């Protein structure tokens, strides 16, 4: 049997301080996430300076816990992979600084990982033999992307949002309705008790290429609620969610057909949404393709996906230099 290769993954791009140990790119030995959601909730969103302060406090304990839970020590680790962007610069720098320092003192290769690419790898953690090409719908608070994954490191960005990310639209609508933060899980829960067909919100650009636009939808929700203050919040939530999911899946489905993909994968924090998950699986059965929805904990930001992507990057590109920095606006590595 060939030797197991262990990657220590580190992630601090937004408001989760995370570390994980993953063997051979898919076998998760530990996956520790310290979430700051409670800290940021009172501000109604992630505050960069508050996030950076919490990362400094949590980073070392989280790494230590990931090693203990995996039952490994530094001699077992083969490389240290860390998110270098995109994300909040002050947050990214805590992970990058810690990862490079550990890499130096433990004499292990340092691997620079693109956070967006890592989200694609959350699927491989649970389905290492996923057959390519697949279409990946990457939806989170900061991103809405439709990607054709043809091979490892071989991506084509088919479309992305022209304004708000899907998760951002959820947060803004939740804030407008006074529902709290984060908006995604709250609206998702309310929508279960509402009628998704109560209000017909617009489906922007639904038949138009692969790019997305959600800012108009947010505006029409606000306008509708202003004019119809008596409509139940649960119906607004369900109808809003229906419009978001309709647009996302109409385009994803079309991409799967156009490019002859074997399946459709969800990734990113919004992929934890119940309606999106359910309808993805329904659609897959209908179209005779593979529908893949990673478990909720793998959709939101975590370090296991960083270690998985790091393992592939380490084998394709080798280690990064110790003078590597962080890049808050790092682009998705697409060739088209």
């Amino acid at each position, binding site marked *: 049997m060939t030797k197991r290769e262990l990657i220590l993954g580190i992630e601090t791009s937004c408001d989760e301080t995370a570390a994980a140990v993953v063997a051979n790119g898919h076998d998760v030995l530990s996956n520790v996430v310290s979430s700051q959601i409670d800290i940021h909730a009172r501000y109604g969103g992630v505050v960069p300076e508050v996030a950076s302060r919490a990362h400094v406090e949590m980073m070392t304990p989280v790494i230590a816990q990931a090693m203990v839970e995996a039952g490994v020590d530094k001699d077992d680790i083969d490389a240290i992979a860390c998110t270098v962007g995109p994300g909040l610069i002050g947050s990214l*720098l805590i992970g990058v600084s810690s990862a490079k320092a550990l890499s130096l*003192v433990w004499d292990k290769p340092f691997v620079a990982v693109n956070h967006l690419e890592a989200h694609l790898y959350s699927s491989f953690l649970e389905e290492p033999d996923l057959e390519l090409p697949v279409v990946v719908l990457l939806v989170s608070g900061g991103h809405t992307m439709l990607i054709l994954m043809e091979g490892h490191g071989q991506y084509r960005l088919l479309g992305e949002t022209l304004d708000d990310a899907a998760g951002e639209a959820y947060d803004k609508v939740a804030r407008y309705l006074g529902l709290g933060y984060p908006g995604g899980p709250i609206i998702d829960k309310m929508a279960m008790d509402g009628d998704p067909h109560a209000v017909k919100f617009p489906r922007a650009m639904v038949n138009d290429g692969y790019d997305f636009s959600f800012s108009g939808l947010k505006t029409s929700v606000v306008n509708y609620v202003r004019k119809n203050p008596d409509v139940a919040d649960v119906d607004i939530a369900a109808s809003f969610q229906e419009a978001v999911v309709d647009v996302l899946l109409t385009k994803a489905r079309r991409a799967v057909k156009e490019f002859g993909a074997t399946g459709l994968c969800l990734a990113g924090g919004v992929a934890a949404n119940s309606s999106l998950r359910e309808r993805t699986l329904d659609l897959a059965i209908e179209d005779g393709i593979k529908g893949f929805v990673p478990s909720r904990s793998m959709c939101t930001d975590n370090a296991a996906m960083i270690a998985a992507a790091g393992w592939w990057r380490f084998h394709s590109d080798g280690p990064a230099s110790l*003078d590597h920095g962080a890049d808050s606006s790092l682009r998705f590595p697409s060739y088209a």
Partner: protein
Amino acid sequence: MLILGIESATSQVGVAVGGHEGVLASAHSARDRRHAENLTPQIRFVCEQARVELSEIGCVAVDIGPGLFTGLRVGIASAMAVAHGLGVPMIGVSSLDLGAFAVEHSRRLIVPCYDARRGEVFAAQYRSVPGGVQRVSEPTVATPDELAAELMAMSEDILMVGDGSERYRDVFGAISHIEFAGTSLQYPSARSLVELSHPKALREEFVAPNEIVPMYLRLPDAEINWKTRASA
């Protein structure tokens, strides 16, 4: 015991290594705020220059601030990771202590003063005592005018050190009993950090990596707004 010192509170980032023989090697850079890029290579470089193996390091000293938040945290996070990775304890030292220590033999009242951006400075008052300096006021963040008014009211001679006193030299220079240590000492240095930490290390005044607490002196803006709103 060999001490690795990491310092990144101002526009400068620096690393030094040393022990009872004094500082064996150091490196400092202050261009383009490349703290995160430069720090790890600097650690490797000074250890190579001092012919010290990382495994020989017995303690990691770090500047805990006050300073410019993002750069400061790069140093603190790196130092914690090094200490954790080597399984050694840490010593936290304030940037203001380092500034005062650089002019420890002055008979004047010593006022280290670092640029806090947004029209403010970090400062504190120190006095020379046998074997070092002693802080005689609480570290504060203030506008140069506020600090100048406070220093103007004092009767004794004052020596200011730090990039804050250089940046606002027009404000502080108007006060006749203030002198300036000058630009060569405007940043806290990793060399001072190692020197100042050595007696602490001998007295075993250590903390664990997770006990290092950055000295910010300023709340995040959002928290200030939230507190104002909550009390309104």
